[in-house]
């Protein structure tokens, strides 16, 4: 659904911006893993594509609020970072398929890279409410780019941090520490959000342990509702056939082992409808 939300608070969190928006209806229908899209630049904007963000926090006060976490990457997010309390925002959501959540109180590792970890906190709350054991592995390029370490420490059994420059926690990638965390916590399942190459590495670790892994695909989207066909990635279906599926409506949450990470950005030759695979090549 589309709502005109009012900005309640804005804050800086290390290298990131966080906006809390009063968005009744969206907050009410939200489940962990959902995302929202925002129109940027105001009503006479020259920026036509909506920006999609995962939701860090949902609260029921003021009729329902959602908190978005983002980093300034271009003119759209720059405009968003300039919003102040009482400004209005055009939001559409909740969008996408949420995380599947286990019924039983299992042991879960949540892996987040930079502000990708934002989406894991509502999930952690849901898992904790189901008496799951939750452990966090958070990472980033540098200390100020690791998002949510404080909150993770507060709610999780253990929190393991890593940075590429060694300024916080262990020096290296989140996947360098993931194997030992999975072993120590006897994890049954892994959830992860971050850039594609990190998701690929997390998936290969989970596959080694033969445990399920749910990843969030961060693909560039124009609409967020499944009509622009630009956010596609190659994913293997239940029938074993690879299709170019939309991250926005078929995801953004996918089973890691189903995503053909090494082929993202290409059309694999064996994908349904690939050029040369019987289909004619017309533009």
């Amino acid at each position: 659904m589309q709502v005109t939300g009012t900005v309640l608070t804005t804050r800086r969190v290390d290298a990131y911006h966080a906006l809390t928006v009063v968005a009744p209806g969206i907050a009410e229908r939200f489940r962990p893993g959902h995302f929202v899209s925002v129109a940027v630049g105001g009503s006479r904007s020259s920026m036509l594509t909506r920006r999609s963000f995962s939701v860090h926090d949902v609260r029921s006060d003021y009729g329902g609020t959602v908190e978005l976490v983002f980093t300034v990457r271009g003119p759209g997010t720059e405009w968003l970072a300039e919003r102040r309390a009482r400004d209005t925002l055009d939001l559409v959501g909740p969008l996408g398929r949420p995380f599947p959540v286990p019924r039983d109180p299992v042991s879960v590792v949540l892996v987040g890279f930079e502000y990708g970890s934002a989406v894991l906190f509502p999930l952690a709350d849901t898992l904790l409410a189901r008496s799951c054991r939750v452990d966090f592995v958070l990472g980033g390029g540098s200390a100020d780019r690791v998002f949510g370490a404080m909150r993770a420490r507060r709610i999780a059994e253990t929190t393991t941090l890593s940075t590429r420059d060694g300024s916080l926690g262990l020096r290296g990638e989140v996947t360098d520490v993931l194997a030992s965390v999975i072993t120590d916590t006897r994890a049954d399942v892994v959830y992860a959000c971050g850039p594609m190459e990190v998701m690929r590495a997390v998936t290969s670790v989970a596959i080694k342990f033969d445990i399920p892994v749910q990843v969030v695909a961060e693909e560039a989207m124009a609409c967020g509702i499944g009509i622009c066909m630009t956010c596609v990635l190659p994913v293997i279906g239940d029938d074993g056939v690879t299709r170019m599926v939309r991250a926005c409506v078929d995801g953004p949450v996918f089973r890691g082992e189903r995503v053909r990470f090494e082929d993202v950005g290409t059309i694999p030759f064996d994908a349904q409808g690939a050029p040369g695979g019987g289909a004619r090549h017309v533009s």
Partner: protein
Amino acid sequence: MSVDMRTFLAHVELDGPVITAAGCAGTGRELAQFFDLHRLGALTTPSITMAPRAGRPTPRMAETPSGLLNAVGLQGPGIDSFLERELPWLAQRGIRTVVSIGGGTVNEYSALARRLADAPGVTAVEVNLACPNIEDRGRVFAREGAASAEVVGSVRSIMLGDVPVIAKLSPDVADIVAVATACADAGADALSMINNPLGMAIDTATLRPALAAGTGGLSGPAILPLAVRCVWQVHAALPRVPIIGMGGVLTGSDALQLILAGACAVGVGTALFHDPYACLRIERELADLLQARGFQRLADAVGVAHRPPGSPARHLHEESSL
């Protein structure tokens, strides 16, 4: 008194003039979550091809000033799956559906028309001529009147008489009136224009083209003046041929420009990516603008900009006979 917004697509009456542009409304299910699709003049499907198509690699999209570059590459499930799953969903709900078709040869367009000829729920067929002709070194059909006419003629001869055949024209031509005339002569019941002109953006960080395909179709408000010019020229040359105007329509005022230039219906595409309710809003704004200018019927505004300056505005003085 409210404005009569009914319009005709050839001989098919539509309740309203605003329709979705090909490839911008998904299967219909996506937008149906937001509003009742019966409120659209019609829904145009993505261009359907014979075989399933995976489309182009990503990145497929780049935002440009007041525009959007895309190179999706007609990703779709193919005609079999379309007839099995997607068209019936629209037909059962009675949603007026314009089926867009795309092919690499005249035979492929004919084969698609044969599959659609007896399918229930086809309000009209739109022939996407902006596809490379495999039999002519990949030259796009829409660039030449003769190639376009051959495709349109073959589809027209196959479709039943009560299903209008619409030729979708591309602005990347030296003389759009020549192509439009060739299509009309070949039996096109209506013309839609414009398809995306080709554009390109280069990522100054990676020093490479922003799209994996290199070039892409440009859409959005950046191309509205190009669309208005094309509709104007074609309506001046072929005043009796119905035109669906499209290209960068974001507001009711944009739609009104195309109608005054000679369009009797308006397609909305990229605006839907920005605002899922764009079609409803644009139709409402268009109705308000028509009313404010004293029009009682949308039909009275079609092509009005072609009147010489100072000529009497008939609709403002005469009572409508309807």
